[in-house]
């Protein structure tokens, strides 16, 4: 590697947090990374492996926002930036939540206000030019909190490149992003590569990015390893499995609810004509649609939070509904997982049995420390814990899950899909899953798939469209949990 072309270098970086006031927990042990001008680097790793910690350390955010100790160096063009008061303008970071980067509600005002500090009177011109470059000019007159996840992500990248940075760090750029927006984000990354911007991407959902990155690293046990990119690509034929309808009951299932000609609108501009829908016991329904297509609205109609403008929703067999929101952390209310179990099981007819079932399920899912706060669990652990409480407590007969596969790695998705398949087949629970990407659903075994397209519910004609392939998940599990995969960088 030509050392002249290295723009960013991380040397012997060690990061520790103080937990419980005094106990030191080392997250990053000895990180070394060199990024060349125009290079695109992908960093993968399990939930909680320290990817976000590394991203935030590089930009210098960590020691300013959290009680963390940082040792080692992060050199930008040979100058240490870890302890600088402000990050250099040439390095920009877009974190997991893109909405936080906007101060003004009106996007154009926010972007022009930011650009004004660098370009003065030319700010408007620059914002227009950059937004055209990324194909985002149609979003400038919107308010930031009305953007979909994919749109917000793209506009946050637009804000980051206003000052022509040399290094761009993207933390989970594909989180909450539907398949169409994934292509748009890839297009943006390609455009930035063409401008010789060095990009570091931290991502769970990395498969769609493999063709646009130069190098892949694995963050494991606090150390960064370089991976052979080909090891991640699907080199072998996917393991085809016969999709067996494991939830097919021996006799005709009891109908839970039916919807007839349901129409809903928030205002006259957004009308959702969902039409007819039926749900029976032991069914796993998948709603597949773009961001903003109406999936969450549909779940809210089923749960009774919203009332249809016209049409009817009839419950043939009333059962308790449990809901897992897009941010799983919002599901939790107690200070320990154990207290969560107790509170949920208080509502059961058999609290003792409920507690045993949930505890057993949690142990099987790798949640062993029940005295831990649910708020300190990783994203994937929170989803698993919530599903154990919802599915194995026997309190809820219908589960509504809003994007349960987002923000987690491929193996976690495989595990969560397994839980859902099992809940439906063995515990008699019905499940409706809302998802914005096909990729997340390959491990599920649904009874029906519906496409949600601009508020219309269209039953899928091809029940086998979700390729039932577990080879990727198992490969990722092997890389994350197996022996050290490749050379330490």
């Amino acid at each position: 590697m030509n050392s002249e072309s290295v723009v960013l270098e991380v040397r012997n970086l060690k990061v520790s947090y103080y937990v419980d006031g005094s106990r030191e927990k080392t997250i990053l042990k000895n990180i070394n990374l060199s990024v060349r001008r125009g290079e695109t680097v992908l960093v993968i790793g399990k939930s909680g492996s320290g990817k976000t910690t590394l991203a935030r350390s590089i930009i210098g955010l960590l020691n300013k926002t959290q009680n963390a100790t940082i040792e080692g160096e992060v050199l930008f063009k040979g100058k240490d930036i870890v302890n600088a008061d402000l990050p250099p303008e040439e390095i920009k970071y877009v974190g997991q939540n893109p909405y936080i980067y906007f101060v003004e509600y009106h996007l154009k005002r926010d972007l022009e206000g930011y650009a004004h500090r660098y370009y003065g009177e030319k700010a408007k011109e620059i914002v227009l030019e950059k937004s055209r470059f990324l194909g985002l000019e149609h979003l400038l007159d919107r308010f930031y909190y009305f953007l979909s996840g994919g749109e917000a992500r793209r506009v946050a990248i637009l804000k980051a490149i206003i000052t022509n940075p040399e290094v761009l760090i993207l933390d989970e750029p594909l989180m909450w992003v539907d398949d169409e927006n994934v292509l748009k984000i890839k297009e943006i990354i390609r455009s930035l590569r063409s401008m010789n911007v060095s990009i570091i991407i931290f991502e769970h959902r990395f498969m769609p990015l493999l063709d646009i990155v130069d190098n892949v690293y694995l963050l494991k046990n606090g150390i960064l390893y370089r991976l052979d990119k080909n090891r991640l690509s699907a080199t072998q034929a996917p393991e085809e499995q016969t999709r067996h309808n494991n939830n097919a009951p021996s006799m005709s299932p009891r109908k839970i609810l039916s919807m007839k000609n349901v129409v809903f609108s928030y205002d006259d501009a957004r009308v959702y004509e969902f039409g007819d829908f039926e749900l029976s016991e032991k069914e796993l329904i998948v709603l597949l649609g773009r961001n903003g297509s109406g999936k969450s609205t549909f779940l809210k109609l089923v749960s009774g939070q919203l009332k249809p403008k016209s049409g009817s929703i009839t419950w043939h067999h009333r059962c308790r509904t449990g809901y897992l929101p897009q941010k799983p952390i919002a599901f939790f209310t107690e200070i320990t997982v154990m207290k969560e179990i107790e509170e949920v099981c208080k509502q059961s007819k058999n609290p003792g049995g409920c507690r045993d079932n949930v505890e057993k399920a949690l142990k099987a899912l790798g949640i062993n420390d029940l005295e831990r706060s649910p708020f300190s669990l990783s994203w994937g652990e929170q989803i698993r814990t919530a599903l154990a409480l919802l599915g194995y407590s026997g309190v809820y007969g219908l589960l509504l899950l809003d994007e349960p596969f987002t923000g987690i790695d491929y193996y976690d998705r495989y595990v969560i899909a397994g839980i859902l398949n099992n809940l439906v087949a063995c515990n008699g629970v019905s499940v409706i899953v809302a998802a914005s990407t096909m990729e997340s659903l390959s491990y599920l075994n649904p009874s029906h798939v519906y496409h949600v397209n601009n508020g219309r519910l269209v039953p899928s004609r091809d029940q086998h469209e979700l390729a039932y392939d577990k080879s990727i998940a198992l490969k990722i599990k092997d890389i994350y949990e197996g022996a050290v995969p490749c050379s330490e960088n």
Partner: protein
Amino acid sequence: MFRELASLFPIARESRYGLLARIAVTTSMTTYSLLIVFAGIKDMLRVNAALAIEFIVIIAILSVDGKLEHYLNGLKVIFLFVFLGALFYAFSYLTGIGPKSVVQVLMGIEKTALLIFPLTPAATWFTPYEVSYVLEKIGMRTFSLILRSALSKLPLLFIDISDAAHTIKLKYGSGKIYKSIYYLLLESLLLGNAYYEAYYIYGLPHIEVELIKNKRQDAYVVFLAISTIITTYLLIIY
């Protein structure tokens, strides 16, 4: 409900009038209300006329500016205040510690309305962005900063509250929505931290407002509002 609250935030969309014209109109309307209220007018008819003219001027200006719908929505809140004021006056009257007659009670209510009416266009007419600008210009930069930080993430917080309330209602039933308090506290802290993160990386955007939008149009609205209320004031007083 909270999600709908978030959508109420952009009520103060672009106005066709410049900031100075809007400040001038709002200030003159407020001054007019104060002068009428403290002029010691005893005649009910005059107070009625003062209130009616004020209301007509506000409605006329806001309907030309396309803000009437928002103003009328905002009036719901105003009527709540007026109603509370009415209760207060009625209570004082019934207990014999306040006004001596029903006319005085009605007059008290009308004067309350007179004072509150010009405040609603202020909420409809000025964006938090413009309020921050004014605060900064009058030397209250810290307060402006606090206002911008607090308001910038408020819509996100409302959306979080809405989602949490819905989730917890289904989890435990409607009586236990208070249980989302841990999550909401945590989320507020995280949003605060997030604001710091955005501030650290990007700083605060420069504020640019249009003090004067269209000279003739701005002057016209200021002249119309001020001349009408001065004439009305003089007619009522004498």
